[in-house]
């Protein structure tokens, strides 16, 4: 078995199992903790709609915070849009998903994807520089922050290296790319990348709790 077969086979397989098991582990582990009942008389009824509202609205900074949070927010947006586009709209990736989902969707031209990926890497680096230089971020950052950054940026870098090649064989680059994705999948449930699914819980919870009080969400 060569590296590519290992990457596409066992590595991806194990990563997928860990991704699924780890995410559910974390989710269930949080959801099954004690639940505190709230007996206060609600000002407004707050159900799933309130949760959905905040899940949406917290994607943007409220007006008073716009200026202060503009830079990291923009960078994070570029990063997330790049991530989304590269993962779900790059044609070979769509084919990859089609391989087990059985259906496909239209993608973006490679040149656009390439641009978005480079933009994502650049904004990722900008965010890292910010984390390394901003006193607040330096204080509150830990291993998770840096490692999560690394495993997120790696698939971009290894993916971008495939067309550039630089004398390395395509299969080797592809294998490294897939392995870096496997690493991302393995780490995702355990560190802060868990916000992929936790964001819906935290925003949703706040949406319901605050809306119940009629407070600003």
């Amino acid at each position, binding site marked *: 078995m060569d590296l590519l077969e290992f990457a596409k086979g066992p590595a991806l397989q194990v990563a997928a199992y860990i991704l699924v098991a780890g995410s559910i582990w974390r989710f269930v582990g949080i959801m099954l903790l004690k639940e505190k009942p709230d007996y206060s008389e609600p000002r407004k009824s707050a159900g799933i709609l309130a949760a959905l509202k905040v899940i949406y609205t917290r994607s943007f900074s409220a007006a008073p915070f716009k200026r202060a949070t503009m830079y990291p927010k923009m960078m*994070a947006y570029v990063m997330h849009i790049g991530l989304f586009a590269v993962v779900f709209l790059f044609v070979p990736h769509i084919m990859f998903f089609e391989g087990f989902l059985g259906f496909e969707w239209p993608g973006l031209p490679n040149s656009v994807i390439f641009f978005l990926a480079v933009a994502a890497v650049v904004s990722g680096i900008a965010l890292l520089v910010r984390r390394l230089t901003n006193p607040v971020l330096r204080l509150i950052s830990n291993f998770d922050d840096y490692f999560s950054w690394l495993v997120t940026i790696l698939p971009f870098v290894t993916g971008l290296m495939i067309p550039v090649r630089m004398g390395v064989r395509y299969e080797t680059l592809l294998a490294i790319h897939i392995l870096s994705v496997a690493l991302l999948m393995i780490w995702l449930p355990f560190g802060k990348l868990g916000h992929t699914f936790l964001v819906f819980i935290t925003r949703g919870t706040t949406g319901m709790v605050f809306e119940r009080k009629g407070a600003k969400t």
Partner: protein
Amino acid sequence: MTTVDGRHTIDREAERLAYKPPEIRHDKQGDMGPKERIDAAMYNFVKNFNTQTASYLDGCLHCGMCADACHFHVRTDDPRYTPIWKIELFKRTYKRQVGPFAFFYRLLGLKRKVTLQDLEEWQHLIYDSCTVCGRCSLVCPMGIDIAGLVSMARHGMFKAGLVPHELHEVARTSAETGSPLGISPEKFDERVEWMADEHDVDIPMDVDQADVLAVMSSIEINKYPQSIAATAKILNAAGESWTFRTDGFEATNFGLLSGNPEWQKASTMKIIDAAIKIGAKTVVLPECGHAYMALRWQGANMYGKPLPFKVLHISEYMADALNSGKIKVKKVDKSVTYHDPCQVSRRGGATQAARDVIRHLGVDFREMEYGGDYNWCCGGGGGVVTIKRADPLRHRAFKLKMDQVEKTEADELLSSCANCRQSFDDSQQHFNWDYTMGSLMEMVAENLEGGKS
């Protein structure tokens, strides 16, 4: 350039060039050993972990945006005042003890055990530099209610005997005498009588059956007693069957602010018991922010079941009474700006009530830039105003408030919280500021039209 030793650096951001006050004062109560203190802190941190807090503590991305929302950080640029950092120990304890991967964190030693030194250092962050105003909770892209977590972290600090002395003393006085300022039922009764005479107003006291139970804040009883008369005028004008009770008059809750749930419950239960005794349908809370949080949103949870009466902040009561025509007010020809008490507006959800009242007063209302729910805090909430050593920090944060108020160029500055008022008064004195904080309730009481007085 001369250098000074690291602990006493020049604070170049201060109004006057000054040494940064050394923060070596770590207050301790009781004579517990280090292990007992840590155990007590852990015990009470851990008690608060439930699905909601767990998702919050698990969800933080360390993006640092909360720092931009916190008046203490904005004014000092001290990274320790980043809201999420204030609950770092709480967060660390969660990950080490209760989170889904706690086993691995312990096994691999990824999250250090909290030490007494840690706890001592964090006293300044959990108490002195957080007013629980909740502005950070609105900026968090993950939607984490950081302020709520600070309140919970205080439980552990209190039980570990690591509360700033002044705050602890106020809370203890409150637990022992029923009032943070030591106001006894007799003294309250005296004050009420005095105010009734002074303002020529009927003030029912200890009535056996009434629809409305009114309560006061000790700050008002002591410092702004005219509030008692104003409350009475308004409730009388509305024709309410109401009363004060000597067995349940204190609205403040220093158990909540200092982090002692037992004391919090004791204070709350006094009001609940009194209200139930007289068959009250409504409890009207005074102009006090945290009193609203304590009874309106946490009262039922202290009681363990839904409350058999409605809880209204006086601004909500006035808004209802004005909207329904129960009371009427004369137009006031002034320009007015309004400072929102965090616990009533941002965290309480009653932002609109004060604005309804202001509309009825017909003033030239000048909303502060980003007022209402995004209002800057007075700097004194969450018990901070009681902590003497936090004064320099509080005054610095107050500059933001001053700017916000001054920009409106309003004639009058109003609010609806005696605690804010106290902290405004203090800062006003400190800065020799022109604005004196007034009371929305008093303005309504002074301008009532008709009805009984």
